[in-house]
């Protein structure tokens, strides 16, 4: 049993966020760290993402998920950063004590700082209340991806996909390549909820139709799935009677959204943001519990892993400063948004530090302008020909332009 009693920084999760934070911390001179990973090896969800398209921003080349993860695993191993696998954290206390279970026993760690990097989970059939029978053959996209790519098991032959999230579209292609027939992808919104490049590369290139403003309204089959009923929805996303159409299929793949996995954060007393479903953080990625930080998909769901790595590195810079100085600048200014913006990261700032402002728009907007201001004073403006909910917007904010007394206002204007 590797008994780690006290560390400077404990990182919960060895996925892309955890690994990037660990490497950056080490390079900043904080070497007394540990990564706790529940799986057999680090890499997180990237391990099952065997398609390419990762790393264009970060490494200027296109990598598969495992390849992208391996770059960071190699960096961690070169630095001999300790990671403990097959270990599930059971509890984090507000005073940063961590209890974890492994086959070697119950681990107890006292950390000066804790980095939450647990990633996210998928929304399920129950979460979106799809009516109908309860047969086998209904899988979330990530579970189907795991079965096919990690366990080598084929989940079905005649497939319908609900939700145009990125994983759903990637699974449409994957299932097609493995010989399944993907009949269609249905999306309840009037626009795709995934990246435009995935609509092109995963659906159009394979002649898989995408139906917008449609949803599954019934599930048929008492044993294995026998079919789904799909209906068109109105502008309030309510099914329109009379538009029902039955698709005979043995498999329904759900790609209906991701939720940051914050059960441990809640246990630690961290306040969550009802909009992002992740922690409320300041410009240092510190939560409202001192010494507990969060980055990556546990904080807010990203569309590109490259941005996760970058965010975790910024977090690591702040954590390094926290370890060195014992505290960070208080952040008492709020970041406020108009109704066109769903949420921002961070939600709190000091007004004295430069930071990267991340946000998403609520619905697709054309020729819009993101305006960032303080007390009516415009700090930054950025024009977008097209802004999509599927694409996170990130705008660097320069400390020199900020004051430290007024809340920051973010709005999207058409």
């Amino acid at each position, binding site marked *: 049993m590797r008994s780690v009693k006290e560390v400077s920084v404990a990182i919960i999760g060895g996925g892309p966020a955890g690994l990037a934070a660990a490497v950056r911390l080490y390079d900043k001179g904080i070497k007394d760290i540990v990564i706790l990973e529940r799986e057999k090896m680090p890499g997180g969800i990237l391990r099952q993402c065997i398609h390419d398209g990762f790393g264009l921003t970060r490494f200027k080349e296109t990598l598969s998920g495992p390849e992208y993860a391996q770059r960071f695993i190699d960096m961690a191993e070169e630095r001999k950063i300790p990671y403990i696998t097959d270990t599930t954290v059971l509890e984090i206390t507000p005073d940063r004590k961590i209890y974890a279970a*492994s086959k070697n026993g*119950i681990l107890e760690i006292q950390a000066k700082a804790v980095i939450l990097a647990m990633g996210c989970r998928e929304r399920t059939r129950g979460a979106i209340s799809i009516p109908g029978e309860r047969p086998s*053959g209904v899988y979330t996209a990530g*579970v189907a991806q795991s079965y096919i790519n990690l366990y080598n*098991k084929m989940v079905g032959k005649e497939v319908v996909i609900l939700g145009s999230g990125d994983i759903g579209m990637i699974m449409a292609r994957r299932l097609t390549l493995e010989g399944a027939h993907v009949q269609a992808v249905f999306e309840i919104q009037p626009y795709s909820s995934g990246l435009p490049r995935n609509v092109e590369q995963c659906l159009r290139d394979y002649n898989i139709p995408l139906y917008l403003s449609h949803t599954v309204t019934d599930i048929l089959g008492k044993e294995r799935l026998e079919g789904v009923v799909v209906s068109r929805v109105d502008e309030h996303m309510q099914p329109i009677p009379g538009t029902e159409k039955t698709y005979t299929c043995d498999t329904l793949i759900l790609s209906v959204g991701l939720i940051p996995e914050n059960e441990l954060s809640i246990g630690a007393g961290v306040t969550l943001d009802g909009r992002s479903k992740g922690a409320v953080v300041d410009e240092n990625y510190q939560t409202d519990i001192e010494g507990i930080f969060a980055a990556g998909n546990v904080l807010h769901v990203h569309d590109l892993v490259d941005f996760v790595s970058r965010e975790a590195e910024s977090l690591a810079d702040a954590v390094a400063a926290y370890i060195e100085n014992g505290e960070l600048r208080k952040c008492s200014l709020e970041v406020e948004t108009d109704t066109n913006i769903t949420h921002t990261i961070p939600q709190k700032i000091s007004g004295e530090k430069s930071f990267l402002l991340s946000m998403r728009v609520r619905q697709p907007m054309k020729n819009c302008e993101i305006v960032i201001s303080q007390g009516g004073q415009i700090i930054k403006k950025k024009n977008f020909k097209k802004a999509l909910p599927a694409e996170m917007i990130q705008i660097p904010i320069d400390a020199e332009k900020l004051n430290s007394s007024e809340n920051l206002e973010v709005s999207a204007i058409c």
Partner: protein
Amino acid sequence: MEQYDITIIGAGVVGCAVAREISRFQLRTVVLEKDMDVACGNSSRNTGMLHAGFTYAPGSLKAECTVEGNQEFDQVAKELDVPFKRTGKLVIGFNETDRANILKFKKIGEINGVKGMRMINREEMDKIDPNAGGEFAMYVPSSGILDPMQYTIALAENACSNGVKFRFGSKVEKILREGDTYRILTSSGEFRTKWVINCAGMYASQISEQLGYPNYPVRGFKGEYYVLDKKAGKNMPIPIYPAPNEKGGFATHATPTVDGNVLVGPDSYLTDEPEDYKTTKEHMDGLYRDGLKMFSEMKREYFIRNFAGIRWKIYNPSTGENQDFVLESDDAHPHTVNLVGIESPGITCALPLGRRAAAIIKEKEQPDNNPSFNPCRKGIRRFSEMSPEEKIHAVAENPDYGEIVCRCETVTRAEILTAIHNPLGVHTVTGIKNRTRATMGRCQGGYCETRITEMIEKELGISETDVRYSKAGSYMFTGKVR
């Protein structure tokens, strides 16, 4: 062809309770079940209430068995090692009509022998549950909550360890009477038996007719439910029911489960189809609307799952009145016990009914006592319910307790392995779920289902195409990828 003294048709809670009570005697007993596990029908599709017995007509079998089953349940839960909380119940009222209805049923409860019921004011309600609505309430201390799946499994496992055989995938197709004995043709072969006990639930009227008893007219009262996240259950110490209507029916209510979730429902509407368990948008929307009115934590972000169950009630076609449970046995139908119309509160009544069925057989057969009968059964020890010290010891003793497979419900590899090797030989994913709670949490198996199916294959040496979700045809994989 297998030969038995006693054949029980149906492995719902009643069939399993009858089996457990008969296992006290030296009788070769088998339970025939069409599905692949116990409690696949309405035994698992209910609120999990241990009812007190204040809404059932005095003198009825329902009333008698409910009060009996309620009073003994602390002992039963201990013997069978099943989760149970005697939470009590609040039946809340807002106005004088509510008060009149509540008092009417309080009186009935008193006649039935329900102990300790009393009217309480708002001040006292605040002490029990400040979040409860209403101006006043009837406090029913004897009500409780249990896990109906775990309970049925426990009854079956206890019966099994005392010698009863379970035959799953054995749908009864025909019952042939040969003198005073029976030949039962099933989807898995033929069984010869002296006694037949009808515990077939929604199909009990059909079996009843095959045995020569009436084909009792039944009506299906279907109800749908929402299952809410444990976050919604944090501040819910006690089930809260609205005042009943004058027939003793309750509108939609929220009930905590013994595991800390919340059930919202059931509503009630008629159905004709025996296994019509589909959920519908109309009723889910209705539950959401009604749920919002009475339960502040009815939030969409807490939705985990939906399910439906059906109470098949015997009714009198000429008056439309619902009837009492039927438990009968007579010489015109030798060596049979006929149980029909066992619906809510069937969980509470299961053992009292089982005892009555066993008594009929005991009287006729005068069997010897089963010398090795043990009323106790041990459940799977749950890591999530251990103290910190117990966890350390458990992992030291068995390292598989240190491997968390289901993160949401903190279920370990040790528990899942024990479940896969359960005494009844059930190996469906749903079977593992009902025995361990793995996949029952908020991610609904997103993290652990892949691991559980892999464990089922490896432990039982079966291929991926043989893994079943719940029913015989509910395959999960079409083969290997390549």
